[in-house]
């Protein structure tokens, strides 16, 4: 029996198809023809630009199930695929100079990054349990390798191993959870599953157990407490561009699958609401409190990313409410945009100040006096920190505003209170970075790397002005990114 692949199937996954072909070709080219590794970097960046254009071309189309119901191209996935393509581009812009100057530039880095991005894109596209597992592994495996890319540096290797072991552990939860969900609903296809659940034919106890295990597996990927233990070590040990890339994109990918599963398929397991509530609250509290004690900027950003996972998860707590579900999705997507911009920007600054890989320039004290010698860079970093806190008029403020709106609308006043109070805690450590840059004398040493600098400044400008000028269109776009199956 042959399985026909129609043009429609290919069209639904055009950005991913293009990236896979491009990355495979690049792998060969890199081995046999390309002398300068920089060329590989530019070619892969070009690939992301094309993928971005293709993703933008998919906007506004009707939702389309493709590959016999394996994947779906709906507005939600197109929104995220475009974001992933952009993130891949930024990831390469941040990484190239860093890898070259530290002598660890190898062509396969860019290819791995591309494959990882394809995996993340597929996470947004899943319409079948098989795809979730495949996409999860496709984006995770390259990340393990990229984390260890600074070998033989012990901290990088160690981070890779830790990430790998906990990632594999999480896959175990995912696989078993998926098995239980399959057992509860007798299908792996998500659209069918929705029908089965609505018809009341699903085994609810088994489904709840399966959903909880899947939540655990995804919890590792988005780094919520208590599945966060790897995050500080991995972000600390990995080369900084990889940490920044992971912090921004892996979280997006995890949330993509989490939202699709919980908002679209699992509203029936409302029993898990308290669990999500607790995960969100714990992440906000522990992430922010632990960040206070950090002296290393990479670890500080790692804990802060845990806290932000908590904020986003707090809106996802409303998943079981059919009216609020779409609003929660929109609010989380909006927050993700704000978070990704500030995260890339902040890690860009980290990259510029890191003198040699993993050494010098990573302590908070190394940021002292930055505003005198590099006012633009310091101002950009200050904007990112203020956006992380949620101070108007940065994009982060609008993000938190929409999140808390959903949380309050769902009636979780306690969770909203925890959210705002932990924001206050976070102001303390984010402002310490600002304080060091602006109010302490120092002689910081900063790399002159125009591409990274341009990325940082662009992220800062967007963070500052998108909120005031385009918050509504961005939100409208996020609102239209509705999860649909057909």
């Amino acid at each position, binding site marked *: 029996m042959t399985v026909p692949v129609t043009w429609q199937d290919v069209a639904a996954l055009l950005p991913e198809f293009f990236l896979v072909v491009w990355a495979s070709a690049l792998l060969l080219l890199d081995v046999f023809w390309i002398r300068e590794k920089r060329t590989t970097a530019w070619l892969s960046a070009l690939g992301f630009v094309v993928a971005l254009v293709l993703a933008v071309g998919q906007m506004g189309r009707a939702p389309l199930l493709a590959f016999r119901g394996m994947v779906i191209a709906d507005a939600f996935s197109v929104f995220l695929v475009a974001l992933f393509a952009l993130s891949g581009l930024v990831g390469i812009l941040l990484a190239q100079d860093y890898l070259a100057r530290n002598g660890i530039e190898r062509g396969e880095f860019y290819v791995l990054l591309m494959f990882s991005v394809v995996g993340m894109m597929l996470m947004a596209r899943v319409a079948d*349990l098989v795809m979730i597992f495949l996409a999860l592994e496709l984006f995770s*495996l390259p990340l393990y390798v990229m984390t260890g890319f600074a*070998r033989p540096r012990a901290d990088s290797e*160690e981070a890779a*191993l*830790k990430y790998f072991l906990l990632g594999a552990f999480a896959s175990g*939860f995912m*696989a078993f959870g998926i098995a*239980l969900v399959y057992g509860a609903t007798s299908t792996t296809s998500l659209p069918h599953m929705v029908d089965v659940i609505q018809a009341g034919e699903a085994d609810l106890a088994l489904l709840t157990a399966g959903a909880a295990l899947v939540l655990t597996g995804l919890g590792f990927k988005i780094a919520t407490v208590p599945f966060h233990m790897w995050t500080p070590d991995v972000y600390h*040990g990995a080369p900084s561009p990889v940490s920044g890339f992971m912090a921004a994109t892996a979280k997006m990918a995890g949330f993509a699958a989490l939202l699709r599963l919980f908002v679209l398929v699992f509203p029936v397991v409302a029993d898990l609401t308290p669990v999500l509530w607790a995960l969100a609250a714990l992440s906000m509290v522990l992430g922010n409190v632990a960040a206070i004690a950090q002296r290393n900027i990479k670890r500080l950003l790692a804990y802060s990313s845990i806290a932000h996972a908590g904020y986003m998860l707090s809106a996802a707590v409303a998943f079981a409410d059919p009216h609020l579900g779409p609003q929660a999705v929109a609010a989380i997507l909006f927050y993700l945009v704000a978070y990704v911009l500030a995260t890339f920007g902040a890690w860009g600054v980290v990259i510029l100040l890191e003198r040699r890989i993993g050494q010098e320039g990573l302590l908070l004290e190394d940021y002292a006096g930055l505003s005198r010698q590099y006012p633009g860079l310091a101002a950009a970093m200050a904007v990112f920190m203020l956006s992380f806190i949620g101070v108007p008029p940065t994009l982060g403020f609008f993000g938190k505003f929409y999140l808390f709106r959903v949380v309050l609308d769902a009636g979780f006043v306690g969770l909203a209170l925890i959210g705002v109070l932990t924001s206050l805690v976070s102001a303390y450590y984010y402002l310490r970075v600002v304080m060091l840059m602006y109010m302490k004398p120092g002689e910081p040493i900063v790399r002159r790397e125009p591409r990274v600098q341009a990325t940082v400044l662009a992220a800062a400008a967007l963070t500052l002005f998108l909120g005031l000028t385009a918050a509504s269109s961005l939100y409208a776009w996020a609102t239209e990114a509705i999860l649909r199956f057909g």
Partner: protein
Amino acid sequence: MVPTSFYIFLAALLFTIGAVAVLVRRNTLIIYMAVELMLNSANLAFVAFARQFGDISGQLFVFFVITIAAAEVAVGLALIVTIFHTKHSVDIDAMHELKG
């Protein structure tokens, strides 16, 4: 015929053994073997359910899991070998470069 629930209990037992072993063992190789046990317990559950439903997609999933597990082994063992070169140990307690 053995009822499906027996298989599921066995699978859950294997899964628990695997998860606990990951948390308590210190040798990275053993930890990885425990992860494999978790994955295979999922496979067992899949096959059992697939037989109950008379549905092929569950069994298909098993092939994917096996393939992915193989890919994971490739990456994982490579990482373990590299770290053995640097540290001459695969014990998790030897990993102490990264402390806050």
